[in-house]
C-alpha cells in the first residue's frame, strides 16, 4: 500500500520546468515494475562498462580499491540491488520503504529497518533507524548524467530517516553502512565514522542525537 505524506515542487534541470514530487511510504507493483524496466538496464550497462575498464587494467593494478573506483566513476555500485526482493522481504512494521515519485516515475528509493541497535550506544542496545538501502534514479546521478534531472534527493531521504527516528522516540539516531563513494557525503552530513564493519567490509556511520538535530536545521 502506498500513502503520500508530503508533496513539494522542485526544479527539473532537464526540462527547466517545475515538477511536483510526491514523498510516499510504500511501493506499488507499478513502481517496482518501473524500477525494473527503467533503472535496471541503465545500471547494468554502467556496471558492464565499469567491469570492462577494470579488466582492461594490467593485473597489477586490479584490486578491490580500483574496482570501487571504477564503480564510482560509472555510477552503478548498486546495480545488483533487486528492489522487488527488497519489497518482498519486508517484515511488518520492522521495515519501511520510502519513495520520491514524479507522477509515476520513481526518482529515489530508501528502505529502513527499525529494529537495529545503535553502535554509538552499544551497551544499552538503543534502537535506531538503520538505512539499509538508499538509491536515486540513474538520471539523477552526476556520474551517469552530467546534468542530473533532480539534485539532493539522497539528502532528502536521509533527512526523512532522521525525522522518522525522532518520531519513533529514537532521538534522531540513524545509522548506515556506506558504499565507498558516499563516505565523504556522510562525514559532511555530521555522521560519526565508526570504522570498517568486518562483517561486510563497509564503513559504518551513525548520527548521534546532537548531530541529527544539526543535520535537520535549515
Amino acid at each position, binding site marked *: 500500500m502506498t*500513502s503520500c505524506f508530503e508533496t513539494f515542487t522542485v526544479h527539473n534541470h532537464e526540462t527547466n520546468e517545475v515538477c511536483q514530487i510526491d514523498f510516499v511510504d510504500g511501493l506499488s507493483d507499478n513502481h517496482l515494475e518501473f524500477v525494473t524496466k527503467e533503472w535496471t538496464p541503465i545500471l547494468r550497462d554502467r556496471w558492464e562498462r565499469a567491469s570492462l575498464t577494470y579488466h582492461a587494467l594490467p593485473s597489477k593494478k586490479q584490486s578491490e580499491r580500483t574496482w570501487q573506483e571504477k564503480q564510482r566513476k560509472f555510477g552503478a555500485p548498486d546495480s545488483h540491488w533487486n528492489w522487488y526482493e527488497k519489497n518482498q522481504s519486508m*517484515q511488518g*512494521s520492522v521495515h519501511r520503504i520510502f519513495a520520491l515519485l514524479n507522477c509515476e516515475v520513481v526518482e529515489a528509493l530508501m528502505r529502513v529497518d527499525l529494529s537495529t541497535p545503535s553502535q554509538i550506544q552499544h551497551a544499552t542496545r538503543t534502537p535506531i533507524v538503520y538505512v539499509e538501502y538508499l538509491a536515486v534514479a540513474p538520471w539523477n546521478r552526476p556520474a551517469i548524467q552530467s546534468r542530473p534531472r533532480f539534485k*539532493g534527493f539522497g539528502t*532528502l531521504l536521509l*533527512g526523512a530517516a532522521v*525525522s522518522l527516528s525522532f518520531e519513533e522516540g529514537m532521538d534522531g539516531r540513524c545509522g548506515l553502512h556506506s558504499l565507498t563513494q558516499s563516505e565523504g557525503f556522510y562525514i559532511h552530513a555530521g555522521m560519526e565514522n565508526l570504522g570498517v564493519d568486518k562483517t561486510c567490509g563497509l564503513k559504518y556511520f551513525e548520527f548521534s542525537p546532537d548531530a541529527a538535530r544539526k543535520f535537520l536545521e535549515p
Partner: protein
Amino acid sequence: MYTHLMKMKITKRERALVLNLSEREMAALDQLAQRKGQTKSAILRQALRLYESLDTRVSQGSRLVLEAPNKKDKAEVLLL
C-alpha cells in the same frame, strides 16, 4: 536544498490506544524506558515490532534460540 522539508512528519496516521498496566508492568516499562533512554511509547512500539518480526519468522518454521555468553548453553525460546 530542501531544508524546509527536512523536518517532515513521516507518520501521519497515528491512532491513540488506552492501555491498562499493573503496577509491576508499569514499573518494568519505566525501568526499560530509563535504561534505554527512550519514552514508554517508543519502548512499546519497539516491543511490538520485535514480537511481530519474531512471530513471523517462527510461524515460517524458524527457531528462536538464546545462546549463553560461554556459547555452550543454548535454549530454545517458545513464543506465545
